[in-house]
């Protein structure tokens, strides 16, 4: 036991405080061991795999439509991202054209999901800060977005809008729905602006979040952070800018320079108006026409992959098709690459701030627990 750890033994570490797997700050189950010396975190170890369900394993050999709807169950926060990316892989492999209108509606769904995911992040962040009121205000705003998602997809959490070749007929946007989305976006924009002003002008909150959980640019790149966490350290990268789906939309990529909790929160807060901007553009220029392209044939294909930008960063799906069934599935979610950043960001801060430093990277451990245990079949 001691031989492996000769190097790390030099560090003065007094005590270990294990938290989880059931804990009030981390609603999801994961284990974090914080090594503290006089309440200052010296090292951290995050153990994932607690909610490993083996989704890739059970996806093996399923018909591709069924497999797509299973990917949705990977995560309840970014479910649309998973099903969209999975559908995109199949479309790429089979060479299916997607009608413009379907594409626009998919993007509306994705951006609505980004809205609710970022708001959940803000609420969770406020909750970890100990600011119940801010959490409740945010949940109040988020409810509008949830209602819009329910209206379009029929369910508050897993909407299942994209299918291969287009979108589900239920998710077609008629005039009434478009009007509701417009009203909802106005409401959310107004409220979130108010909230953001209130948030950044609160001296107590600002003193808690400024200069806590700092992640430098070089470290973030070295630890392969992704998404808003990387953007908060000053790296100007957003896959949406390079995705063909987003070609016709105008939006800004938000970056901040500090890499602390404040920068992370600001990136997410400022991305909300950008998402609203994209939704408004999509609604204003919503093309007419059919929503599903049904003229395609199933054929075998080698391993195909696809990347998209989801609320937490870069999402990777790949699988091959064999007789209409899915084989060799690999899914890599953004949170798994952010774990290094989480462990690194909480070192050197008070233990209460350490939780905040973990939460600042927007962890979604449900997404993360994908790794397959390789067995002999």
């Amino acid at each position, binding site marked *: 036991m001691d031989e492996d750890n000769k190097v790390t033994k030099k560090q003065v570490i007094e005590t270990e405080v294990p938290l989880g797997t059931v804990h009030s700050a981390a*609603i999801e189950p994961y284990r974090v061991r914080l090594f503290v010396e006089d309440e200052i975190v010296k090292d951290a170890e995050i153990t994932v795999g607690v909610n490993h369900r083996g989704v890739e394993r*059970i996806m093996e050999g*399923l018909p591709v439509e069924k497999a797509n709807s299973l990917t949705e169950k990977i995560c*309840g926060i970014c*479910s649309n991202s998973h099903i969209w990316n999975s559908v995109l892989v199949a479309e790429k492999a089979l060479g299916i054209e997607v009608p413009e209108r379907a594409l626009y509606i998919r993007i509306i769904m994705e951006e609505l999901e980004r809205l609710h995911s970022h708001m959940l992040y803000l609420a969770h962040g406020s909750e970890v800060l100990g600011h119940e009121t801010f959490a409740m205000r945010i*949940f109040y705003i988020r409810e509008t977005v949830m209602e819009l998602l329910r209206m379009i997809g029929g369910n508050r959490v897993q909407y299942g809008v994209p299918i291969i070749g287009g979108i589900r007929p239920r998710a077609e946007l008629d005039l009434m729905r478009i009007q509701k989305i417009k009203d909802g976006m106005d409401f959310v924009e107004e409220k979130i602006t108010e909230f953001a002003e209130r948030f950044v002008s609160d001296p107590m909150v600002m003193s808690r979040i400024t200069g806590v959980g700092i992640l430098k640019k070089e470290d973030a790149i070295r630890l392969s952070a992704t998404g808003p966490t990387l953007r908060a350290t000053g790296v100007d990268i957003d896959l949406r800018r390079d995705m063909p789906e987003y070609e016709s939309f105008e939006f800004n990529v938000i970056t901040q320079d500090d890499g602390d909790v404040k920068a992370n929160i600001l990136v997410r807060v400022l991305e909300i108006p950008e998402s609203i901007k994209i939704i408004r553009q999509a609604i204003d220029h919503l093309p007419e026409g059919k929503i599903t392209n049904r003229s395609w044939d199933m054929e075998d294909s080698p391993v195909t992959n696809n990347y998209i930008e989801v609320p937490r960063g870069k999402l990777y799906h790949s699988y091959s098709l064999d007789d209409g069934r899915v084989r060799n599935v690999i899914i890599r979610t953004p949170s798994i690459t952010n774990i290094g950043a989480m462990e690194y960001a909480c070192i050197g801060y008070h233990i209460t701030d350490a939780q905040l430093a973990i939460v600042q990277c927007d962890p*979604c451990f449900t997404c993360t627990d994908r790794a397959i245990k390789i067995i002999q079949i």
Partner: protein
Amino acid sequence: MSLKSYSRARSVHVMLVYTGGCNGCDIEIVNCIFSPKYDAEQYKIFLTWNPREADVLVVTGPVTKHNEQPLREIYKAIPEPKAVIAAGACALMGGVYKNINGDIPSEEIMGPVDKIIPVDAKVPGCAVRPEDVLAGAVAALPKLLNAK
């Protein structure tokens, strides 16, 4: 109604244990506590994270391998009388993870919940709706009220 059941009905502490579903049910349950729209506290339901304080255990998710033992421990830590609500399709029957019948079944799912601890109320849905969770808490109440 005796003082005992009256006080039990007027103050219900709910603990949420999340055993590895997809986060969806979990967020909806937290939503129904935190969102001013649902506000469970007006129905005298309080969220707690301490098993010693809790009366009602809400379990979501299909119970993965690493969560089985913690779930038992937490159930044991709650003093009598206690009730368990299984919320969501995964908690009720293992959900898609157990029942999708792919080529290789998942070895990780130990659930559903009632294999591990006794369940008193079941809330269906994927994901559960906040209204249903509140209704489920009400459905579990008689067990608490009539307990010795």
